[in-house]
């Protein structure tokens, strides 16, 4: 296991004005009782609304925040105690921060990082050449970072995080603010990295396309608790999200009353039927429809990932603050 987290908890003390001179302290729980493990080579998406505890978890995983309680092991190390050692095995990309030197050409940042991480000259060359080619860095390697576009900078950030060949790459909102093309490019690069080198990816995001295209596994957190953890397909089933059967009928027909169907929307000869997979399978439903009317064409749609996650949030009533 590259990440082992057990009973992780983090609280913050927030002081508030209470009266003219008194200040009262309030405990705010950012993360409570989070447990999960990540095997080597996994691609894990970590999602949740703002303030759900994602970044707090990431900070504890990278060792820059000390947990209030619980056990964390990353790459076999205790992050907060062995932060420097861990840093050599870990790559971190913060979408809203930069680890590049703002005033210097991109290449200078890479060379400084090579010194900081003590990467051998040949390995450094190899990885830089690889990233330069795959991410198309050549045209702006000598441009000062402050003059790069966000898309170019993010490509630089990813390269910077990979120069020391980490086994685990943690990405905190890596695609935030990027245009569609830049997002697609980044995703395919990361997918490739995972496939060819087996680099474990852990990413937080608000862009669910990132999850859909990159992550085999999804973990949903809200109010500091893990709501769901599993493969996307499994989660879809577990929240019993409706699927949709769309049929084009030869002639209009009455399709009401089929068990398991929760809603019907007719659009001329095209009819959309929403159904619960737990009550009726797609095959059974098609058979039932075919018994009533002649089907010209059909399509079965999945619940969107947004729908799945929204339902996961709904499952759990918000605790009183």
């Amino acid at each position, binding site marked *: 296991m590259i990440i082992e987290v057990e009973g992780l908890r983090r609280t913050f003390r927030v002081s508030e004005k209470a009266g003219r001179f008194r200040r009262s302290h309030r405990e705010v729980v950012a993360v409570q009782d989070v447990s999960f493990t990540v095997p080597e080579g996994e691609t894990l998406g970590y999602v949740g609304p703002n303030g759900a505890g994602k970044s707090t978890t990431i900070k504890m995983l990278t060792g820059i925040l*000390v947990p209030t309680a619980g056990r964390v092991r990353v790459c076999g190390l205790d992050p907060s105690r062995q932060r*420097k050692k861990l840093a050599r095995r*870990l790559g971190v990309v913060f979408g809203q921060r930069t680890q590049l030197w703002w005033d210097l050409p991109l290449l200078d940042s890479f060379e400084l990082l090579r010194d900081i991480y003590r990467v051998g000259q040949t390995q450094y060359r190899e990885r830089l050449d690889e990233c330069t080619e795959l991410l198309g860095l050549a045209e702006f390697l000598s441009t000062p970072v402050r003059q790069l576009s966000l898309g170019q900078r993010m490509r630089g950030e990813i390269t910077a995080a990979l120069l020391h060949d980490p086994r685990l790459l943690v990405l905190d909102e890596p695609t935030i603010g990027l245009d569609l093309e830049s997002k697609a490019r980044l995703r395919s690069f990361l997918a490739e990295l995972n496939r060819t080198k087996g680099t474990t990816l852990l990413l937080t995001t608000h862009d669910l396309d990132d999850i859909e295209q990159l992550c085999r596994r999804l973990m949903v957190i809200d109010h500091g608790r893990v709501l769901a953890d599993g493969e996307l397909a499994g989660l879809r089933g577990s929240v019993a999200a409706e699927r949709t059967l769309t049929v084009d009928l030869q002639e209009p027909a009455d399709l009401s009353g089929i068990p398991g169907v929760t809603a019907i929307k007719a659009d001329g000869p095209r009819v959309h039927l929403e159904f619960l997979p737990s009550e009726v399978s797609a095959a059974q439903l098609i058979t039932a429809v075919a018994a009533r009317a002649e089907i010209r064409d059909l399509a079965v749609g999945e619940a969107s990932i947004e729908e799945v996650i929204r339902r996961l949030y709904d499952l759990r009533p918000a605790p009183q603050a």
Partner: protein
Amino acid sequence: MRAGFRRYSAYRQAALAGVITNSVFGLIRAATLATLFTGATRSSEYTPQQMSTYVWLGQGLLSVVLLWGGWDFAERIRTGHVAVDLYRPWDLQAALLAEEIGRAGYALALRFLPPMIIGLALSEMYLPRDPLIWLLFLISALLSVVISFSLRFMINLAAFWLLDIRGPASMYALVSNLLTGLVLPIWMFPGWAQTAIWATPFPYLLQAPIDVFVEHGSPWRLLGAQLLVTAIVLGAGRLMLRRAEHRLVVQGG
């Protein structure tokens, strides 16, 4: 160090503007002190040549030692960018010090030499004859850079607790103007004040390297005291960093 030098050399116009303001300010101070001199009845501890060197050396060292500014790190703490600094496999204090020495090296070439040349051209300056003194001066100036860094490092670190360090920073600027010997040489203060001032780290930022250069007092004693101060402030900064890391609240998402 390389990064420090390169980062600051990226802004040439700012450097030029800095040199000009610095030199003009130096001329004003030289004139003020000259009048003070001719009017003064008390016996002076500096010869006029030493006084001239004191002024121009002070002007030059000002931006090498960095008496004003240098609060970038507090800003990184406030905005949460410090997270990036903290997950690197380096000694943060040492890394920032290395960058600072790089910056000082750049300042030595671009901010120190011009006022010195102007000073030499416009006035008669005291220059030590013994090459050893020049070497000791360089060591003393380096220690000043380290002390200055260490003091500011601690004030910067205060951002972990205070978030906004404008208060302590402006206090520091105010105090350092007076106590480093920038405005007036420390020996011009009354005797009791001199003792008190030399017990603070401030005169070791400017007065000490200047006195080493103009050979005012024993250079060895000055250097020894500077070394002691360096060790104390570096150690204190290290302790404070450890405390900060432990109670760490990295700001922002």
